[in-house]
């Protein structure tokens, strides 16, 4: 399977990565070779094999429902470039 340049640009957009034309072509080739490998793996018979979501033989530990954290807003806001009225400010996101 080979990727079109359009596919690469769409993937880049979804991941919010800025690619120039050269990059896009390079990724087109390297991603295509990854997909070739996947295609090769498709020939393995996986009937009756449960898809593996985690490689570890462990299960999730649970936390009691208790509030353990205090308000540290001022410390958190201090990391942000712009804040106001206790809010983080970001570039406007609606038209």
């Amino acid at each position, binding site marked *: 399977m080979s990727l079109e340049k359009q596919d690469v640009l769409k993937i880049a957009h*979804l991941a919010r990565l800025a690619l120039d034309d050269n990059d896009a072509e390079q990724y087109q080739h390297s991603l295509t070779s990854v997909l070739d490998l996947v295609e090769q793996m498709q020939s393995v018979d996986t009937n009756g094999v449960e898809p593996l979501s*985690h490689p570890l033989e462990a299960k999730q530990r649970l*936390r009691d429902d208790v509030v353990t954290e205090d308000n540290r807003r001022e410390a958190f806001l201090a990391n942000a470039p712009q804040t106001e009225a206790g809010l*983080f400010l970001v570039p406007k*996101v609606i038209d």
Partner: protein
Amino acid sequence: MNWEVVIGLEIHAQLSTKSKLFSGAATSFGAEPNTNTTLVDLGMPGALPVFNKEALRMAVMFGKAVNAEIGMTSVFARKNYFYPDLPKGYQTSQMDHPIVGKGHLDITLEDGTVKRVGITRAHLEEDAGKSLHEDFHGMTGIDLNRSSTPLLEIVSEPDMRSAKEAVAYVKMIHSIVTYLGICDGNMAEGSMRCDINISLRPKGQQEFGTRTEIKNVNSFRFIERAIYTEIERQADILEDGGKIVQETRLYDPDKDETRSMRSKEDANDYRYFPCPDLLPIELTQAYVDEIAANLPELPAQKAERFMTEYKLSEYDAGVISATRAMADYFEEVTKAAGNAKLAANWVMGELSKYLNTEGKEITESNVSAEQLGGLLVRIEDNTINGNTAKSVLQAMWEGQGSADEIIEAKGLKQVTDTGAIETMIQGVLEANAAQVEQFRASDEDKQKKMIGFFMGQVMKASQGKANPGVVTPILNKLLKG
């Protein structure tokens, strides 16, 4: 053409945990912006989620309450998209292995028929933060208090065929989650929100038409109106030979219309994959059985019990059991008054009138269940009649005291002394001698109609305090002469 509407619903219920799904921050509503946040909720690099035990228990409770399969192994997945109120760049949700699988529940429609609605699945996920678009010098303000608040997303089968059915279904889910105590059901505060999938097809056609999704509708009334509006819009397009575009729309209650949310359309590729930060959740059968054995009484079971234990009609039982608060209130009134039918009538009638007028929930009632019970006791023992009781309730609502105090202070006690009533009736008949003569000259049918006039005069003379049960036989006797 005759169109059939097909509706499926996704309901987000916020679980009533004290702390968040993946962090130890508080979930309290209305806190100052960004004060309920931790490094995990802010998506700081290296901060790892730890899963809340109580959220898991609540999800399993819901599953058992809707007769669903429980996912004995469930897996968290990342749903990837970029939005500033989602600082991690993904929402932790569930995809292939949700905690709750296929189930169903029964809804009762207005004409009394019962319809079964399928539940496709229900999964745990975290909420995002809130974007405030008011003017911050042309920028957007971000409040992450809601980030990582636990949600249960409940997905129905496309089983509903009208707006009324959809609303009945949402009300039943609302009723179940509040009975279970896993969600406060406060739609105005966003504790329950609803996405509505709607399509039309010619009546009789098997396959579904193209659907649209109306996002984030947050009241029963808006759900119904949004559906009517969207049905009309789709029917207009189809009648004109047009095609429905599969898209996400927003309902605007002020204009009563749905609008396309074009911006999100092209990038709806969430690239789900299992979350490497969270291991699979493994349940034991003993854990699930224990939760199933300890489920509280659910709305349908309560309605059933009210019909057998208190002999309520199916309709009354349904109305009263719709919310746990009303059911509890009713049972307390009944306990105090000793007459369930009377209690049901007053809770659904007079009391609900006051609540509706002031837009109050039954938990905020000015008159407690015990106080209302105290009033009904006085109807039962003939101290006052039903009409007087209404004015006593008004005084109680205005905070003038208990039923007994008000009856005493206003001298409303009913007169049941036969001698006194007989004297009073004689006085009334003497004052209306002409009407009495007319009565005696009339046939029986006419007399039946005229008796009301005399009854009214007697009640007036007694200032409403004469016991009608005592008045009627004496009045009949004296009128016949």
